[in-house]
């Protein structure tokens, strides 16, 4: 047997042949039992909210003024950083001359400050483009993917997607636009969504969703911001297909399925930081099983 073969076995790095050989040993049964048992173990509970609260308390008492004094400088740094990135991209791609483009890869996010100081947070696998120099004349942002907008007081602009247009005035809202999927959630103020020649007004706490051409509106459960900003992706009666696509974007994995109904509705959420936990949260409620190999995940159903 290869050096450290037990470690390789746990990591699915053994060849089929080696696995067969290993399974034939008399020690295998106990190894399997140990691995199965440890898979269902848990560390003691860690109250992350309390820990953050305690930490914030200490941060503020240990060094009161520090946060405030550095703040404006930090803002400047961040804007400078974003501009640098954008220049880099337009240098390589040399797109339409004035366009500012910021895009994120899978498992990546970005923060952007617009010319009017509004903030945009881009989720994984997303892209925004806008005209920076002509911003005053053309306050329009083209979005592919998902982004959260914190609009500066008194400012207004449009977010254009291939599914619909969102107009805003001093507000906070989230737009998600993926293939066959369009969702707008308003967290503060008022936004107006133009979808198929119709204007729909969304006050704070309301959301709108279009899946395969079917439009529904619903109330957002007491949230101040979309859950992905808190490292969680949540869904309410969304076809499983879209949930798995989001999983691919968040962890940069490839999902395959076998005997799975991709149109079954999924309600729930998954962690954006803990891959195993995320896989578990998706598979358990739908009664699916999964195997993870490298960056490939296979979801399957054993019962025919």
């Amino acid at each position: 047997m290869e050096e450290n073969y037990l470690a390789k076995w746990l990591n699915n790095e053994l060849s089929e042949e080696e696995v067969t050989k290993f399974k034939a040993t008399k020690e295998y049964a106990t190894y399997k039992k140990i691995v199965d048992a440890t898979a269902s173990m848990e560390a003691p509970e860690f109250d992350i909210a309390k820990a953050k609260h305690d930490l914030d308390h200490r941060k503020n008492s240990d060094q009161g003024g520090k946060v405030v004094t550095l703040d404006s400088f930090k803002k400047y740094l961040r804007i400078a950083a974003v501009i640098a990135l954008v220049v880099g991209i337009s240098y390589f791609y040399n797109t339409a001359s004035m366009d500012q483009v910021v895009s994120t890869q899978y498992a990546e996010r970005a923060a952007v400050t617009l010319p009017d100081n509004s903030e945009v947070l881009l989720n994984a696998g997303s892209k925004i483009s806008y005209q920076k120099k002509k911003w005053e004349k053309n306050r329009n942002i083209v979005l592919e993917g998902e982004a959260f907008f914190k609009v500066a007081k008194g400012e207004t602009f449009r977010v254009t997607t291939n599914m619909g247009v969102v107009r805003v005035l001093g507000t906070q809202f989230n737009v998600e636009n993926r293939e066959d999927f369009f969702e707008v959630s308003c967290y503060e103020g008022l936004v107006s969504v133009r979808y198929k020649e119709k204007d729909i007004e969304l006050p704070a706490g309301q959301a709108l969703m279009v899946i395969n051409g079917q439009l529904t509106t619903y109330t957002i459960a007491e949230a101040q911001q979309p859950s992905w900003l808190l490292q969680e992706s949540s869904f309410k009666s969304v076809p499983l297909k879209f949930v798995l696509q989001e999983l691919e974007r968040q962890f940069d994995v490839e999902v395959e399925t076998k005997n799975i109904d991709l149109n079954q509705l999924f309600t729930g959420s998954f962690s954006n930081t803990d891959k195993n936990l995320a896989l578990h949260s998706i598979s358990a409620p739908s009664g699916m099983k999964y195997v993870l190999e490298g960056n490939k995940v296979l979801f399957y159903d054993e019962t025919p």
Partner: protein
Amino acid sequence: MKADNINNVCEEEVYASIFSTHSKTIFNYIYYKFGNEEKAYDAVQEAFIKLWENCAKVSPQKAKSFVYTVANNLYLNVIKAEKVRLKYKEKGPSTEYESPEFILEQQEFKEKLDNALQALPENQRTTFLLNRIDGKKYAEIAEMEGVSVKAIEKRMHLALKTLREQIDGI
């Protein structure tokens, strides 16, 4: 997250996101080492206070290894290790019938496993549990422990080997 575009740990948003991503792992990491919840909790606090104090100097990419290093160094003057207690996740009501013998056997196995885990050298136990419970990749554990991936493979191998020998009584 690659995130070269979110650029400063002093930004509360960036800082909070680093906290929510890594605090639980640090807690578990220190707990697996010493079996002391309070010390593990304090290690998280210390690591993130230090990160805040140095936020201008530490890039978001470096923040992860920074907090692990601080947490790690905190207890270099070895504190007395206590028993590491691990719970088993509650399973939903089982649909299969399980005989009392089977349940008893399970119970005994868990007890043996518990003792065997306890008896492992600290570095093997920590590595093994970070992989098994937290799903950390060997490369990530190597980064936390400041050793090579190969060394982590060795620890994993030895840990599993020793656990089996203890349980089977060889």
